[in-house]
């Protein structure tokens, strides 16, 4: 272990000692290649050292534990699942960020946006324009609701980078998001057409298709929930397997993979969620 530590630090020291000549010099390419090689060797040896170091504290857990339901916590006599508590923490942090931004940053906005204002305006503008493109009525509340849902969702998947099980791997949470969409679909449909009109669309082409249309209406929130839950749980299982396979050597590699599974993949899935919700709402409102 000491040998690997010495080798790793020595490789980095050597790399910094090789001087980098001027760019027009003919030997630039080969010197840069040698520096890069030394940096790679130093990195690998330091990784081995970290693995051996953390292997000293290894607990004897040799089997992989994965369960579909998260563990339950006992809170003031009620038994709540850990996803709900994590979701509460995420909501509290989001409210704190929103209040701080509103009190300190918004009064200082200028005509030409720079910096933080540009980021905020781009994000809000993207969601708002997308919602208004697909469901183009005068409704401002829908864009605001979807932005809040996106913030909650992104917050709860970033939590996985810290090692906590994110709330979206719980079937109850994704089912509740999908049920809110179901309520929104019916609300817009009934507001536009009345209760009788909404029931009448069930018998639209021929009255005999009514049971099938009813079934497909019920299948919409269930499919939304299952799609989200399955994708998130699959990602979590892959990263758990990686941690279990590498054991004590999992120093830097799962973070790189986590960048895809916890940042990029949930964004795509959530874009699909919003897109499908808007499509179904638009379908319930059209004649």
């Amino acid at each position, binding site marked *: 272990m000491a040998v690997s530590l010495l080798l790793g630090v020595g490789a980095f020291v050597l790399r910094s000692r090789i001087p980098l000549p001027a760019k027009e010099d003919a030997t630039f390419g080969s010197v840069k290649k040698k520096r890069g090689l030394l940096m790679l060797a130093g990195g690998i040896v330091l990784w081995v050292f970290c693995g051996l170091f953390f292997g000293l504290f290894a607990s004897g857990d040799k089997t992989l534990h994965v*369960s*579909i339901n998260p563990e339950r916590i006992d809170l003031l006599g009620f038994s709540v699942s850990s996803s709900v508590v994590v979701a509460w923490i995420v909501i509290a942090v989001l409210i704190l960020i929103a209040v701080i931004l509103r009190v300190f940053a918004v009064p200082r906005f200028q005509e030409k946006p720079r910096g933080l204002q540009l980021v905020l305006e781009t994000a809000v503008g993207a969601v708002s324009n997308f919602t208004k493109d697909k469901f183009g009525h005068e409704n401002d509340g829908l864009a605001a609701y979807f932005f809040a849902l996106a913030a909650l969702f992104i917050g709860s998947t970033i939590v996985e980078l810290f090692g906590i099980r994110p709330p979206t791997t719980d079937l109850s949470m994704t089912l509740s998001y999908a049920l809110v969409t179901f309520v929104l679909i019916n609300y817009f449909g009934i507001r536009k057409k009345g209760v009788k009109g909404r029931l009448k669309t069930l018998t639209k082409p021929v009255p005999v298709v009514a049971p099938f249309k009813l079934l497909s209406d019920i299948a919409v929130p269930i*499919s939304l929930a*299952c*799609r989200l*839950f*399955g*994708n998130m*749980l*699959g990602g979590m299982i892959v990263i758990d397997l990686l941690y279990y396979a590498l054991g004590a050597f999992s120093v830097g590699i799962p973070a790189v993979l986590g960048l895809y599974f916890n940042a990029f993949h949930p964004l*795509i*899935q959530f*874009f*699909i969620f919003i*897109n*499908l919700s808007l499509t179904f709402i638009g379908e319930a409102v059209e004649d």
Partner: protein
Amino acid sequence: MTNIGLVAIGAGIAVFTGVGAGLAMGIATGKAVEAVARQPEANSKINNLLILGLALTESTAIYGFVTALVMIFTMK
């Protein structure tokens, strides 16, 4: 009378829905690439439609995966 071996075989058969989904997504991507090659200025619209269609067809594979997971974790 449930046997862990039968549960494992059943879970393996349940994940077979991925075959159809993978085939369909490959064909869809091929057609999208052809469409972009025909008319490169419709790039972003075709891209959006492609992502939407891929996520919808992937959901059938996810159904099979979720069924297999439920089988493994709740049947003893």
